[in-house]
């Protein structure tokens, strides 16, 4: 029997992240590489450990191989524990049949037994979609102080952006008076971050009731939370002010990466008091040659730069050959950019080869029609042949060689 834990976390990592296109063809969204050495899931996992939450259930469903392999026994995040630690929770066969996770609430429902083993007072529900550093323990203290059944972390967003989010309208004591899901004319700019603290005894009952309701789509945002609200359960918003970014689209993933190069963006990964842990590949230090120029960029171990890198992020074991130009781009592990190739305003996934003279992406200034501009994406393992080009705003998942244009 596991020892009782006051609070455990459940991390919803089963989503496909279909808006990330070819980047999530073979991996789940939380496993998408970010920031030179991390994957998206490193942020919630590290936040858990740094917040003192040492039992984390990771719910996987879509393309879990890479994610399962990455998390392993959790050692990289110090989550290989005798009591608790990280657990991968995939859908499993039950006596009444096998069910996929139908929705976010159903995913937790199917793992009630896992949660009950630790007999927690509180459960934190997280998703593997966001880049942010947050102390969940402070939020938990707030939840206790307010005597809430559910506390939702919120962030003030700009009014222009507000209609893209699930919004909350608050009373003076920060209790939630109304929810608005992506409204055309927002009445609030307080957006939900997808981070919830629940009192487990309450949530447990709501999950059972929700499962019994054939009308429900078994989703936290659509069903469980509105139901709790309608029943008058005490629900509060917890204000978070810090960097938070949904990396759900190619553009936002690209931006969130380049944010790391902007000293004005408050996301400091060098802060030793709140480290973001990752599984570190075994690579030697990176090498910058005599002829290379590297400006305003991030370079990870094992990489070799002989060309020019400007305003870009190079993951581990990337090679940039002589005369190659990499600008405003994200280059994932193992990719080789050969002599004289140009990679700009692009995301190049793992182990791709950009042959010499090839051109990937274009700068916004070079696009006659601004609507034609967008981040170009080269998929994992793809070769862009000598002298070939990849237009801006396109995604390439097959080799581009001569003839084929």
């Amino acid at each position, binding site marked *: 029997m596991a020892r009782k834990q006051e609070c455990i976390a459940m991390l919803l990592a089963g989503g496909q992240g279909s808006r990330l296109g070819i980047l999530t063809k073979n991996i789940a969204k939380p496993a998408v590489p970010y920031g030179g*050495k991390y994957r998206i899931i490193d942020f919630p996992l590290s936040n858990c450990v740094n917040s003192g939450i040492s039992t984390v259930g990771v719910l996987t469903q879509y393309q879990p191989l890479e994610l399962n392999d990455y998390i392993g026994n959790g050692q990289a995040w110090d989550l290989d524990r005798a009591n608790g630690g990280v657990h991968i929770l995939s859908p499993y066969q039950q006596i009444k049949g096998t069910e996929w996770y139908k929705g976010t609430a159903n995913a937790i429902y199917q793992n009630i037994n896992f949660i009950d083993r630790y007999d927690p007072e509180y459960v934190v529900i997280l998703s593997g979609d966001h880049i942010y550093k947050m102390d969940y323990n402070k939020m938990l203290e707030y939840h206790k102080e307010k005597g809430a059944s559910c506390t939702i972390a919120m962030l003030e967003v700009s009014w222009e952006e507000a209609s893209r989010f699930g919004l909350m309208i608050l009373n003076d004591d920060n209790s939630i008076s109304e929810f608005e899901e992506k409204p055309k004319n927002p009445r609030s700019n307080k957006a939900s971050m997808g981070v919830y603290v629940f009192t487990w005894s309450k949530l447990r009952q709501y999950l059972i009731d929700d499962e019994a309701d054939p009308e429900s789509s078994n989703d936290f945002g659509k069903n469980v939370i509105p139901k709790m609200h309608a029943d008058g359960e005490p629900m509060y918003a917890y204000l978070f002010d810090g960097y938070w970014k949904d990396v759900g689209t190619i553009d936002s993933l690209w931006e969130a990466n380049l944010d*790391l190069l902007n000293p004005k963006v408050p996301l400091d990964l060098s802060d030793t008091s709140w480290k*973001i842990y990752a599984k570190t590949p075994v690579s*030697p230090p*990176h*090498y910058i040659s005599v002829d*290379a120029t590297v*400006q305003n960029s991030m370079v990870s*171990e094992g990489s*070799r730069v002989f060309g020019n890198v400007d305003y870009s992020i190079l993951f581990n074991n990337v090679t940039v050959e002589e005369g190659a130009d990499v600008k405003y781009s994200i280059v994932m592990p193992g990719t080789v950019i050969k002599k004289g190739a140009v990679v700009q305003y692009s995301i190049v996934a793992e182990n791709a080869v950009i042959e010499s003279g090839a051109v990937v992406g274009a700068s916004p200034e070079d696009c006659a029609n601004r609507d034609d501009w967008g981040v170009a994406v080269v998929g994992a393992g793809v070769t862009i042949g000598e002298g070939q080009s990849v237009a801006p705003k396109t995604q390439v998942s097959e080799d581009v060689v001569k003839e084929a244009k």
Partner: protein
Amino acid sequence: MTGKNIVGIIFSNAYDECISELTGIRTMGSVPFACRYRLIDFALSNMVNSGIEKVGVLTKSNYQSLMDHVGTGKPWDLSRKNDGLFILPPFSTNETGGNRDKLTSLKGIMGFISRADEEYVLLSDCNVVLNLDIEALMDYHTAKNADMTIVYKNGKVPALKDVIVLDMNDDGKAEKVTLSPVTEENVNFSLNVILMKKALLERLINEAISLNHKDFETDLVQGNVDKLNIYGFEATGYSAVIESMASYFKTNMELLNPDNCDDLFNNDRPVYTKVRDDMPAIYGLGSSVKNSLIADGCIIDGTVENSILFRGVRVEKGAVVKNSIVMQDGFVAQNSTLNCVVVDKSVVITPNKTLSGAESYPVYIGKEIVI
């Protein structure tokens, strides 16, 4: 795999005295090297890459930093239920004082050696930078029907005491062994990686005890050249022996040649080390970095040329680091200049300072000093 039948023994303090600046506070094995490694990483990684699952690390003194680095052996996959990593601190008997040479050290761990089930034993020092294919070494040892195989390199004999130099016949069998001969010629000198049957090592140690022998190189190797089949196995690819501060400096700098780096950090036999979870290095606007090896966690806003920066080093705007080695968490403030300097861990160079040494005699700044 070959290694399953070999027990590894690493001498973490071997030749400590040759770079006393760096080993004053640590063992040779825990001397920082090449941006993110400690010298022991090479010996440990070579062993585990060949499948060796049991490694004893002999320590003599000042081994806190070594213990901190190797921990339970997890980064090398040596944190095991069965076998794995064994730290072997000095075993005090009436005859072992503070000054433990190789033979005395081995006497002290006779228990460890005799309890091992493995048929072979592989001895390694830590002042050697080498990526060795131990499976090939074992194949050679077996093919030659050797009693003892010593890995050697051809070159100028290192300026260390008791360096084994082999004179071999065409077959590779040693016919004569000299110790640190004075010569300007290239010779075949030992890299002190030695393979033999465990039973032989036990016998040789017991003999040495009964004859009151004191020295590994003189009595166990040189004295047995006629009695045993001692073979030499040439280390190909890049390798180096750390014999002084100047050679420590030079060896680090040699890795700025990508070919040497490729040899040493061979993809087939990776070099493992303790992970520190730093972010990738950040190059600021206006920074200039040429011909340098940089570890994760560095933040560079100034100029860096022909240098080795360890994890978490910061070079501020206007600061210049040339031909230097800056260890973990070093801080070079604005408008300071370093040339041919070896900066130990967590040193702070405050603004507008100039420090300059020579390649043959780099200036050394001790750990945690503020200048």
